């Protein structure tokens, strides 16, 4: 949904050139109407219908002033909604080849750069993406896409962990295009940078300005979420979280044999239990249940599709089941059997904890084994906005954090200053990259900040309503609210 909103806003931002001449007026009108129909579908969230309209414009009116815009919309759809990088690349390449001087070409260069970075973050890919962004101000200096290009230049450097290099680019967007939504996005990214560099409180004012300058926008909502997270972790004392008085689910609903808790992009809360995956709206009302018998794990991926895992088989909603064969040295490949946790990366690949193999494997959406991601006997997997993956290591009871390619970035040992994990049971990242570790036996949640510094410990042990006794799983929403499942109450309790 978040992606859909971004996609919709980009569509609205597209400008359309006037038709070339009276001779083509008839077909130009038809093209325009078809294109506008597509835009209308996008705004309603009917992406499949929108795609048909855009494709019709491209196929039937390739000479119209709308063909390039339609191609750009197709590419954006594949990148941001369908997450089909190949299709997005094909549409962008065609746009740049057939309409190199059109008003959509600058944004196509931006898109190509984003695709490059979505596929890989090697230094060469980073350079290739930066070169693609740099073409926009050089070739199209007065295009509105320049702001986007500058933003993604900064964001690419941020993703490449070149924080100091990223900052001037975000500043430039803010200074040159202060009224553009890209300035708001640059401020959001700059705020994340400040948090990552342990200067979190300096981000408050910047985030609040987004709320005042772009009220009602998705960026303003995101700024509210960021500030809420920062307020709890850095300002609110002595207890950053308090029981909200809310439970998820009906008064009499109780759940057992928990497979995990998750929050999707729409803020819905998902609870995996022995009878399936129950999905609740943000207020806690049950919306629907994905029926599954004793799932071992589940995760949510693009377009809020729930993927249930049982007996090592991945069961995506509305799609065929996916069995995964993993290679065994000098032996016949074996099928995955016991999967305690799995996630999907931003590019679409999936990471699956293989208990038998005592490692984490990377598979494609089709279930093809791609690589061993990490030699960690992982109990839980979770990823953050940078695609960093945190894993609970069953062996050491510590946390291993790796980048999206499996390179270990850091470790949080089982024992450190002011904490000791006894039974780390679940993990969660908030939107700003703080890592939350739930320890069932300690009945505590530890929050780690930049450089794995323990920021705070949330302990709510007790017997009064809302207190924790046997916390087993947790998730965190965009505003940093904690949803903790407690085996004693057999419910999800909300902390904020």
């Amino acid at each position, binding site marked *: 949904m978040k992606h859909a909103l971004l996609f919709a806003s980009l569509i609205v931002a597209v400008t359309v050139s006037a038709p070339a001449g009276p001779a083509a007026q008839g077909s130009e009108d038809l093209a325009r109407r078809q294109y506008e129909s597509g835009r209308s579908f996008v705004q309603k969230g009917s992406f499949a219908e929108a795609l048909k309209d855009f494709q019709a414009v491209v196929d039937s009116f390739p000479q119209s002033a709308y063909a390039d815009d339609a191609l750009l919309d197709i590419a954006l759809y594949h990148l941001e909604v369908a997450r089909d990088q190949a299709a997005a690349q094909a549409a962008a390449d065609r746009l740049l080849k057939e309409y190199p001087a059109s008003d959509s070409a600058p944004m196509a260069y931006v898109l190509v750069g984003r695709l490059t970075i979505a596929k890989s973050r090697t230094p060469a890919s980073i350079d290739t993406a930066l070169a693609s962004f740099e073409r926009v101000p050089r070739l199209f200096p007065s295009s509105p896409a320049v702001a986007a290009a500058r933003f993604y230049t900064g964001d690419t450097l941020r993703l490449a962990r070149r924080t100091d290099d990223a900052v001037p680019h975000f500043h430039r967007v803010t*200074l*040159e295009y202060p009224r553009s939504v890209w300035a708001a996005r640059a401020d959001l990214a700059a705020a994340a940078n400040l948090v990552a560099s342990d200067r979190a409180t300096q981000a408050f004012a910047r985030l*609040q300005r987004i*709320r*005042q*300058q772009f009220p009602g926008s998705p960026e303003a909502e995101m700024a509210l*979420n960021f500030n809420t997270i920062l307020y709890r972790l850095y300002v609110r004392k002595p207890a950053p979280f308090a029981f909200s008085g809310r439970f998820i689910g009906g008064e009499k609903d109780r759940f057992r044999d928990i497979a995990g808790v998750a929050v999707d992009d729409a803020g819905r809360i998902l609870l995996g239990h022995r009878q399936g995956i129950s999905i609740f709206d943000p207020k806690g009302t049950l919306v629907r249940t994905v029926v599954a018998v004793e799932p071992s794990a589940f995760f949510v991926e693009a377009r809020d599709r729930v993927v249930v895992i049982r007996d090592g088989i991945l069961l995506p909603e509305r799609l065929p089941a996916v069995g995964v064969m993993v290679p065994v040295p000098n032996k016949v490949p074996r099928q995955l059997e016991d999967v305690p946790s799995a996630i999907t990366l931003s590019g679409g690949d999936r990471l699956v904890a293989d208990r038998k193999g005592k490692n984490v494997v990377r598979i494609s959406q089709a279930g093809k084994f791609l690589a061993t991601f990490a030699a960690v006997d992982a109990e839980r997997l979770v990823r953050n906005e940078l695609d960093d993956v945190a894993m609970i290591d069953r062996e050491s009871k510590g946390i291993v954090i790796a980048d999206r390619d499996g390179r270990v970035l850091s470790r949080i040992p089982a024992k450190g200053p002011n904490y000791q994990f006894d039974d780390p049971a679940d993990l969660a990242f908030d939107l700003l990259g703080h890592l939350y570790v739930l320890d069932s036996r300690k009945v505590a949640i530890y929050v780690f900040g930049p450089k794995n510094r323990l920021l705070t410990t949330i302990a709510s042990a007790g017997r009064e309503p809302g207190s924790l006794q046997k916390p087993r799983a947790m998730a965190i929403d965009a505003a940093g609210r904690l949803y903790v499942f407690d085996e004693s109450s057999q419910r999800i309790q909300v902390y904020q």
Partner: protein
Amino acid sequence: MLALLFAVLVAVSPPGATAQQASTEVLYQEARRLFDALDYERAVTALSQAITALEATTPPDATRNERLATAYEMRARSKFGLGDQDGAKADFVLLLKLSPAHALSGQVSPRVVALFEETAREVVTSLSVSLTPATATLALDGVALPGPGTIRVAIGDHTVTATQAGYRPLTQTVTAVAGTTTEVALTLERVSSVIRITTIPADVDVKVDGVAAGRTVASTDAPGTASASAPLLISDVATGAHTVELTRECYVAVTQKVEVERPDDYTVGPVTLRPAVATLSISADQPGAQVFVDGKDRGVAPLKVPDLCDGEHLVELRTPFGSDSRRVTLRAGSDAVVEAILKPAFAIVSVSGGTTPSPQQDVRVIVERAFAASKTVTLIAPPADAAQKALEASQLSSDWLATDTAGRPVGASAQIAGPLRKEASAKLADAFRAQGVASVTMVSPARVIIALLSAGSASPDVVEVALDSPPSIAAAVARLDRSISLSRTSLGLQLIDVADVPGAVIVGIDANSTAVSTAARVGDVVLQADGKPVTDAAALTTLVEAHNPGDVVALDLRDAAGAAKRVELKVLPTPRLIGLSEQGLLANRILLDLRARLAEATDPFEQSVVRLNMAVALARVVDWTAALEELQRVKLPEQPGVGNGTVQYLIGLAAENLGNRAQAEAAFKAAAGSDSLLTENGPPVKELAEAKLVELQRAPR
């Protein structure tokens, strides 16, 4: 000797009638002197020469005829004195044929009188002329007569002519017989109508049936007075109804109907035209505005002009910072009011590139009209020839300021260096008494790029507009009119919204805030302000913005433990600053606005904020010298947001651009120790200044 004198006079005199008259007069006067001296012999010779010269004189007007007649008389009397009676008689004959009513002058011998009278009886007789209508013009042998009656004429045949408008001209030959009075009666035949028009005053334009028929002129009886004009005759007027329109600037026009029933004389007037004046009261939104009405300096607004003719007038008001120009149509007797709003003006001096919508149309005028709705700036199109002349005077071609949509110079514009463009913009703006100049670059017949340069600027603002698209024009005007706010009010608190927490959460307290000395703490939540609920940070911002600096706002807070408390905070003025590199910002337009604001600013804080913004605008138009001068006069405290750190960073940039490394380094160091922001929305100058210091350290000294 006379012959020699005449020869000399002829030789030295230039050819032409005047020279001829002069020499004839000399001859005549010399001959008269000899006659008066009774030197008849030499007088006859001299008079003969004078008579020859007079006879050759053209035209044979009354003065010449009188001179000639006198010359004949003097020669006749001289000859008589010399005993030449025949010669004397012959001269009397010539005299009487020329002037039949001639009478001898002075003391004349009775013998001469007898000879003259004898000759008269042989040569002259009487002619009695009667005329109908009596007002007709009469001429005898082509010479105008004063009117009908009895006149002396030479015996023989004569031609009598009578003419009058509306009548067929009549010519009649008559033989004047000696010794009796010959009578002739002339009756003219009416053939058409005549309208005689008289006006008070004169100089009134006359139209008959919509066709210009002439203008009345002052009567020779009393020229220059308000009396009736001489009649203006309109001849050959057909039978039927006619409309006579009488107009004169600054008078109420009069229309009269004339019914022409039959050929006759019709009289209109004297028609009195009433003066048509109005009173115009003129005021301006700025003090000291000079008022010009139809180009004439009328003084400084506010003023009243009581005597303006009705009709359209060009009213202009000017100050060094702006002008207002409008055309006002006045009605006689009305009291009209002009409340001028002076706006900075850009004179559109050139058009280049592409094709114009129509060869007959001046694109500059179309642009002027398109932007007439602007509330903050005026685009004026001076007369094309004046604009061309001004360009030529500066040796500039029409594409001297041509740009593409990104503002990059194209054509000859790319060859013009910054200093030259600065000089040209100042000179051209001054030539048209504007605050800046503009040029139009045609992209297509309807799509144009307008480049705006404030006087003394080298870097133009660029506005692209489709002249055939009202939405495009409206967008361009809105862009021009985008207002800038130079300050806001605040409490010196950093406030944020937090999900699930109603109110505004305090996350920072500025050092200059009065909250520092109160019970307010970071983490407190603002629940109410001045007794009104605060739902979020924006609500509190809105409430504070409604206050003036110095006001006190009471806040109800709740601390982390849930305890309530109340604090009272003073409202502070907080500067704002335009973006140094914000795309689309029209720095030239803003610069003109700021210059006007500075002229009005009296408060030191306000002056500093205006100067700070001017400095940024000047930097944007690449006038770093002027920018630095303004920055050095800015006094702002060290504070979060826009403050002294901002000023120091900008001084650093200006010094760097002007090649003053030491000054730049010192300023960047000062900025690096500051909490200020570059604009109220960031980024922190600390980060920017630190980056600049690194750059300077890397750069070779």
